[in-house]
């Protein structure tokens, strides 16, 4: 039965072909450092899932943000687990992505024809940092508030256009309800959508070009 359903779908969708290209690729002999990209992908997916779950209860307004997080932690069963995964996952993701980048760098895997893969990777790391920066404000506690005050103030020190950047980030001169709302929008829609498109491009490049060898003495 399952076999029949599968072959019916496969005949129309070409599932086997997708499986073969995506998972049954030829890869050179590699080591554990080569697993970090997949680890980052897994953590990114986990952030997406736990983030969507947090949005079931979280409310991005100054009067309710903090209380809604408290409710997640104390009022909802397993709220601590979902928030905990999202909280620790964000740091771990940046760690895995960063070490993944170091591996690519030290193995020279960024060279022709993989320069564009590297560029999309840099965009992904910046997106992850952007997610961390915008997400940090959302609990709207003292730490969030002052961290974002400092973070936006730093952006404001850029010569010439600093004040402009600061105002655009905050949605005005002060850190306010407007700031919280736009950080929320960036955090759950704008950056994730951009990051998803970039992840798909990154993976497409990896599949299309194959993984590079570990360089030997001659190279």
């Amino acid at each position, binding site marked *: 039965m399952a076999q029949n359903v599968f072959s019916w779908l496969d005949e129309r969708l070409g599932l086997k072909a997708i499986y073969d290209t995506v998972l049954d690729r030829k890869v050179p002999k590699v080591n554990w450092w080569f697993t970090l990209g997949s680890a980052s992908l897994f953590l990114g997916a*986990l952030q997406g*899932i736990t983030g969507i779950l947090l949005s079931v*209860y979280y409310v991005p307004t100054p009067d*309710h943000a903090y*209380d*809604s997080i408290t409710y997640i932690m104390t009022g*909802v*069963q*397993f709220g601590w687990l*979902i928030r905990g995964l999202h909280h620790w996952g964000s740091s771990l993701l940046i760690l895995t992505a960063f070490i993944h980048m170091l591996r690519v760098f030290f193995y020279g895997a960024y060279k022709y024809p993989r320069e564009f893969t590297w560029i999309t990777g840099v965009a992904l790391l910046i997106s992850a940092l952007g997610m961390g920066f915008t997400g940090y404000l959302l609990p709207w506690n003292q730490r969030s508030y002052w961290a974002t005050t400092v973070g936006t103030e730093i952006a404001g020190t850029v010569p010439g256009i600093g004040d402009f950047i600061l105002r655009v980030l905050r949605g005005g001169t002060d850190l306010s309800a407007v700031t919280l709302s736009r950080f929320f929008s960036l955090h759950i829609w704008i950056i994730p959508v951009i990051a998803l498109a970039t992840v798909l491009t990154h993976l497409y490049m990896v599949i299309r070009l194959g993984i590079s060898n570990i360089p030997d003495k001659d190279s």
Partner: protein
Amino acid sequence: MSRKYRSPVMDRRSFVKIVTSALGSLMAAVVGLPVIQYFISPAFGKEAGDDWISLGTLEDYPFNTPTLFNFTLTKINGWERSSQSYGVFVLREEGKEVVVFSDVCTHLSCRVNWNPEKEGYFCPCHAALFDKHGNVLSGPPPRPMDRYETKLDGGQLFIHLREG
């Protein structure tokens, strides 16, 4: 891989497949099962309110005319405090025990009003009429108006408010 590492039981491919699906299922379960609780737990929160509410001095209520008493209670739903308003009709009659009715229509929960001309409680939503003692005279409600348990304490009238 050299020959001496070959397992007689299974090849490397099936081993990796089994380990991957086992670990994958484990991780999916660790997140997936709590998620069900995470979603449904607010639906079965604490059994709310069980309180005796004072309606003031019994002597202040007139005889034979149902009199509306309004009060509000603060409720906490998740992260929000909101006040909910209640209305009850107090009916005092000579030689009878005082009766307190809820103003919530037993049809679909609109609020009924006392209508002196019709000598009854009228529900504007689907034109139901209850008599002074809460019995259905006309309209769709399936049962008479709900009554609260009452008690008197030092001349004060109390009703027992139970919800949840």
